[in-house]
């Protein structure tokens, strides 16, 4: 409608937020906590999936070759591995190569195992699957091939990783819904305070012929303000904390790949601000439905 009306609505809404003091503070606080936890969950989820993806890439099957196998038999075995449906890549690691790797990792500890007779290791194939989820099944198939002594893959790790993202998400969603409802309830109660405090004004508005929405807008805006302010704090906090966390991790836990802040933070901020606003708006509509029948 008129700009003057909007100024009026907004002025009224701000003065109510101020006048309701502690209730406003509590509403903003609950929205802030809710959205902080939501934001943390989202970041955690994104990163668990990201890490899982990364680990999945690295998960591979190690198939140890029987010692008795001759070099041409090993080559045949390699060909049959490559021909398997689920296989992406096959790499042959000779026992000498394996020992070299160990030396790189553990240095002097493995001194003295050089030479064909002393090397306790076996020749092996490192096999990567096209789809990481196929690894358990593929491992079984590989184990049944003649000439393969033993098969290894990160059994527990793989299965856990595939299920953990789902669990994190479920717990998070349940928790969030509870908190969001609490926030709405608190906002509804805060708005109710305003409605009661201004019952006389509302009555007078009705007597002079105000439209229902002229009466309602200030309350709706008040709820939206509470939600928005509530969202502001966790948004800023998460931006700072996450940037710090990523910086720290890349220095101290460089094997842990985290999603870079630039890729997620703006979208997260948008999401939280919109959610806060929506929670606030719904909260005030709930309180008005019962209290502001013209």
């Amino acid at each position, binding site marked *: 409608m008129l700009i003057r*009306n909007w100024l*009026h609505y907004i002025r009224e809404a701000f003065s109510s937020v101020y006048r309701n003091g502690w209730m406003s503070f509590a509403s903003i606080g609950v929205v802030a906590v809710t959205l902080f936890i939501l934001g943390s969950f989202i970041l955690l989820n994104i990163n668990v999936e990201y890490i899982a993806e990364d680990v999945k890439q690295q998960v591979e099957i190690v198939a140890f070759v029987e010692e008795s196998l001759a070099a041409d038999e090993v080559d045949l075995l390699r060909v049959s591995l490559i021909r398997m449906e689920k296989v992406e890549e096959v790499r042959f690691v000779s026992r000498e190569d394996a020992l070299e790797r160990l030396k790189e990792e553990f240095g002097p500890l493995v001194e003295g195992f050089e030479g064909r007779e002393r090397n306790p290791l076996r020749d092996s194939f490192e096999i990567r699957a096209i789809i990481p989820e196929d690894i358990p099944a593929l491992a079984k198939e590989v184990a049944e091939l003649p000439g393969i002594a033993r098969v290894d893959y990160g059994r527990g790790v793989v299965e856990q990783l595939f299920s953990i993202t789902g669990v994190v998400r479920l717990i998070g969603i349940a928790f969030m819904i509870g908190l969001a409802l609490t926030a709405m309830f608190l906002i509804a109660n805060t708005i109710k305070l305003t409605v009661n405090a201004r019952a*006389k004004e509302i009555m*007078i508005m009705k*007597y*002079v*012929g*105000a439209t*229902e929405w*002229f009466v309602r807008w200030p309350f709706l805006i008040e709820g939206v303000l509470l939600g928005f302010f509530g969202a502001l704090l966790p948004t800023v906090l998460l931006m700072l904390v996450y940037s710090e966390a990523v910086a720290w991790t890349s220095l101290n836990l460089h094997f842990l790949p985290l999603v870079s802040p630039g890729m997620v933070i703006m979208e997260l901020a948008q999401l939280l601000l919109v959610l806060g606003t929506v929670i606030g708006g719904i909260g005030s509509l709930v309180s008005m439905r019962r209290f502001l029948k013209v």
Partner: protein
Amino acid sequence: MRGELTLIELKRVSKSYNNCAQPAVANLSLQVNRGEFVFLVGPSGAGKSTLIKLVFREQTPSSGQITFEGRDLSRLKQKELLRHRRRIGMVFQDYRLLKQKTVYENVAFALEVIGRPAKEIRRKVPAALAEVGLTGKEKAFPAELSGGEQQRVGIARAIVKDPLIVLADEPTGNLDRNNALQLMELFETINRSGTTVIIATHAWDLVDRMKKRVVAMENGCLIRDEQRGSYGNEHVST
């Protein structure tokens, strides 16, 4: 419709609250013409306030029909209801001013709420305040005014939107005789400019003095309707 004389018509209107056996308004028929000045009298609980609420369409009749400018009030849609109420100026016994707003703001509020342009507000508010004799008090807050002055603000707020009719429920109930008399004269002035006025009141001596149409109620029934009437002898002692 403009030329029509009848403004309000009640046809056999009854109103019961909460299915109460004794109705607040009982089988009441009444006609009020444009430009009339009507006193609504009767003892407390007679149903005067209910009648006013019915005309404002704050309440709807349990039976019977009320028409305003020929339109059935119980058939109004939301938009028409607002339009209806905007053409009525309400005045209350307890003034119902917003204490955190100044005199000027209280009157301007009635226009702001219905979305009138700022230019019109700047023109009409001072005019309404002048009409009720409050020029110079624009910046005062209600608490700084006498009861009579506060009610003048209430009247200014009622007339600022140029209503077809002013409905006043015991407007002088909280005022001394002198203030009450001045206010009645103010209502008379408003009425002379063409606005219909209906006043529910206990102030029998003022009613007798003004020689206007008197509609008397008792137990929800209309018991007397006289042009240039008086409050009625049966209540003079109260």
